C-alpha cells in the first residue's frame, strides 16, 4: 500500500536529472553566451512591445522531442510582456 503514496522513484529522479545535465553538457554553451543571447533577444522584442527583461528566462532543452543523441535541442524563452499596445505598429507596415 505504501507504494501508492511513495514519492517519485529514485530511478525517475536519476533520469530527470540526467536529461537536463546531458543537454547542457552536449550543447556546451557557456552561461556567458546564454546571457548575450538573452540580452539580444530582449533588445529585438523590445522594439515591438514592452517586456519585463529582468524576469525573462531562456534555456536550451529537448522538450517535446525524444531524448537521446539524435534529438535536436531547442531554445525556449519565457518573456513576460508588460504592454502589447505597440503591436499595431507591426500591422500597419
Amino acid at each position: 500500500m505504501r507504494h501508492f503514496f511513495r514519492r517519485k522513484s529514485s530511478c525517475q529522479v536519476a533520469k530527470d536529472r540526467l536529461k537536463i545535465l546531458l543537454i547542457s553538457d552536449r550543447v556546451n554553451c557557456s552561461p556567458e553566451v546564454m546571457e548575450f543571447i538573452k540580452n539580444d533577444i530582449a533588445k529585438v522584442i523590445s522594439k515591438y512591445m514592452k517586456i519585463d527583461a529582468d524576469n525573462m528566462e531562456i534555456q536550451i532543452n529537448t522538450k517535446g522531442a525524444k531524448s537521446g543523441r539524435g534529438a535536436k535541442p531547442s531554445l525556449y524563452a519565457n518573456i513576460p510582456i508588460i504592454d502589447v499596445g505597440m503591436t499595431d505598429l507591426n500591422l500597419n507596415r
Partner: protein
Amino acid sequence: MENQFSPEQKGSEVIVVTSGKGGVGKTTTSANVGTGLAKLGKKVCLIDTDIGLRNLDVVMGLENRIVYNLVDVVEGNCRVKQALIRDKRHPGLYLMPSAQTRDKTAVTPGQMIKVIEHLKEQFDYIILDCPAGIEQGFQNAIAGADRALVVTTPEVSAIRDADRIIGLLEANGFKQMDLIINRLRMDMVRRGDMMSSQDVVDILAIPLIGIIPDDENVVIATNQGEPLVGRDCPAGQAYANVVGRVLGKEVPYLNFDKGISFWTRVTGIFHKA
C-alpha cells in the same frame, strides 16, 4: 548490424574499451572479452594503456611474468615481441602490460598507432584497455582503434561521463561504438531504484552490445586472476554473449529478470519476516 560483416572482417580489428569514469569495469571487460575471443580460437592481444596505474596484468593473473612493457617498446628498449606475455591457459592470447613507474606522457598517439600497426600483422583482435579520464591516456588509447566498447553502470555519474566519451569518440571519427551496461541489479530496477538497461540506452543512444549483471563472481575471479567469461554464472554467461556479439553474431539477451525475480521472491519472504 550488417556492417559488422564488412570486407575488413578478414583483417584484424582494434577495439578500445573506454568509459570516462573510473571503476565501472573497463579492465574487467577488456580481460573477459579478450579471453572470450581467445577461447573461440582468435589470436588476441590485450594492451594495457593505463600508464602509471596498470591493472590488466593483475586481473589476467599475469603480473609475475612482466619483463618489458609498452613504454619499453615505444622507447626502443625491446622489440614488440619481447614485451608480449603469452597467457598459457589460452593459446593465442597475449598481453602487453603498461609501465607502472611512468606517466601518460611517456607515449604519444602516433607511437601507439605504430605499435598497433605492427601488432595487426599477427593478431585477429587487439583490445585496448583505456585509462579513466579524457586526457592524453585516453587520446593514446583511441588513436589506433577502429571501434569502441563504451562501458557504463546504471548510475548518473557514469552515464554522464559515458555521454561525454561518446561525444569525444564521435568527434574523433568513430563510426562503431557499442554500449556495455555493467553491474545491473534487476532487483533494484524492479523496485524503481535503478535505471533499466532500456533507460540507459535511451539516454546514450548508441547500440547495446551487452548487459552484465552485478555478480559477486566477478570479484572472486579478479581475486584469482582468471577472467570468468563462459563460466556458469550470470556475469560469465553475459560476457560470453558480449563476445558473440563482438564477432557479429546475433545473441539473445539473458533474462536476468526471470531468474532473479523468483529468487528475490523466495528470499523476500524471509527478509520481510
